[in-house]
């Protein structure tokens, strides 16, 4: 009998595992797609009785508000991510490099939003924003989105900073690089993977926020999840499915575009950097 090695195992299990993975990933999307194209697909029918483009023509029509909400979702996610980067960079640097009094407390506060239930903190944020007049505004929603996203950005950047040898910066300084040049030429290229990871999480989490956007935006800031929710919640499952597919596509594309831009930019610098 053949020896059961890792290679052999991979050989025998590779195909079924891949198939399983594809099905678990693709099946829900396929089901959603079929659902969005069906006309009254109900139990106990195994397949929809008739196909129709009704849901999609509604979703893609100009009157549905889809385009505006996709644009708004992406805009909020992008601004949130940029603010996260600007806030997270110095914060992560300090947390990775220095030991100071109360460091654990600061870390605790930074990570708190992903430990404390979002509903609890959002209620507090809403009370404060009401007083400040920030509710029912895009700005308010952007600020509220920072709470659940910043911890992931900081975490990713801390790990990147921890793997950056501080001596490299010393070396750059002895070669005449000032503070800004050290950061721009030496540290930042090293941080790209961490930035990609942090920004991906930040974008995804911001895009998928429903509760925070609903409470802080007061229903006036209509992002894609807000537009989608009534349909999923019993309104019209076909349209809800179409929105769900659209949402997956939007999130996937946003991720792809972001990592492409970052990697392409630094990839270029890597090749032609002189």
């Amino acid at each position, binding site marked *: 009998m053949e020896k059961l090695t890792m290679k052999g195992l991979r050989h025998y299990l590779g195909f079924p595992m891949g198939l399983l993975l594809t099905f678990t990933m693709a099946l829900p999307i396929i089901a959603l797609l079929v659902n969005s194209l069906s006309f009254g697909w109900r139990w106990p029918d195994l397949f929809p009785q008739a196909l129709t483009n009704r849901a999609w023509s509604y979703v893609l029509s100009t009157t549905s508000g889809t385009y505006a909400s996709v644009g708004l979702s992406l805009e909020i996610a992008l601004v949130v991510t940029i603010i996260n980067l600007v806030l997270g960079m110095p914060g992560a640097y300090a947390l990775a490099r220095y030991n100071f009094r109360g460091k654990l407390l600061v870390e605790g506060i930074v990570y708190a939003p992903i430990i404390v239930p979002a509903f609890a903190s959002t209620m507090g944020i809403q009370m404060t924003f009401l007083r400040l007049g920030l509710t029912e505004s895009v700005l308010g929603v952007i600020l509220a989105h920072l709470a659940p996203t910043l911890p992931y950005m900081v975490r990713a950047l801390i790990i990147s900073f921890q793997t950056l040898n501080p001596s490299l910066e010393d070396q*750059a300084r*002895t070669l*005449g*690089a000032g503070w800004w040049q050290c950061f721009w030429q030496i540290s930042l290229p090293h941080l790209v993977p961490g930035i990609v990871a942090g920004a991906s999480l930040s974008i995804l989490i911001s895009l998928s926020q429903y509760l925070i956007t609903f409470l802080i935006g007061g229903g006036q800031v209509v992002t894609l999840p807000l537009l989608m929710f009534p349909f999923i919640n019993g309104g019209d499952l076909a349209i809800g499915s179409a929105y769900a597919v659209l949402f997956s596509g939007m999130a996937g594309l946003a991720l792809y575009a972001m990592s492409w831009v970052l990697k392409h930019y630094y990839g270029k610098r890597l090749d032609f950097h*002189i």
Partner: protein
Amino acid sequence: MNHLYLKGIEKGYYHSDSDSFELNIPQLTIQEGELFALLGPSGCGKTTLLKVVAGLLEPDRGEVWLGDQTISKIPTEKRGLGMVFQQALLFPHMTVEANVAFGLKMQGISKGVRLEKAKSMLKAVGLSGFGDRFPAELSGGQQQRVSLARALVTCPQVLLLDEPFSSLDPELREEMRDLLKGLQQDYKLTTLLVTHDVNEAFVLADKIGIMKQGRIMQIDQPQILYENPNSPEIAMFLGAKNVIYGQLSQGVFQSGSFKLAVPGKEEFNQQPGWIVLRSENLKLCPVPASTKFSQINRDLILRGSVEKSVFSQGSYHVTVQMDSQSVILSFPADQSSKPGLGEVLELTYDPQALVFIPEY
């Protein structure tokens, strides 16, 4: 004038009770074009001193002068120094050429000029044609060469070297030393080298400063330092095997019943101190001293039995026990067969080569 001058440098380190020391350099001058080696065991503060000169660490007190102006208040990047660390520290996302040109880029030199300079510098360190590669594609020795080229290409006023070769193989180390010495002399670079490798300091340096616990114990040219160490620790650090404590009286050194004739030191009377009897100064008597053919002065004969005998790299290193004192001597292995344990040997020495370090 581009000499480097340190004045009253003090820097305290207090990690814990056991691990704290104070760097204290009242003054130190490194002449223009000189290669000065700071030699000391690890943890003696030599790297700290180098970082103070580079501006990477701020001293508690004191000033660093370059020529006739103080550079203490100038940040590292404007000091115009070159520094090579123990690791090559090449920037991993840049090509070898971009690494070498980095310093020139920071000076705002145009791309064409800096690429040309980088190319010729790479040639000087024997790495022509490696410019397009990335650091990860080079061996350790090649990386360290690139690091050296990168530090030299900006024509620094002072070159600082922090144990630059200690992570390399011995063979490669020798090659790099030759390369460094050649380049240093070609460019007449004022160089401060920090090392714990005695051999490296002696091969490279014009002048050596011995450092211990944050202080410089002795500064001199290598040979003078070797021949006239001013403390028993320095003598032992520089490789002396037999450093014996005793008393010198009217030209005779005595430690217990062990006696040595020390001519030319008659001015000392009952002076306690150490005698340095180098293992290469001790020789086997070719003929038994008791015979009348022996030409050797009887006062210069030591007799003892072999306690330990080790063969290493073409020499025997033999420990001989005589009365209260054991001494180590070395001689080429081809001179005679390996001395057996317990064998009685007669040794002689050159009294002129003895060094006496008085205790004050």
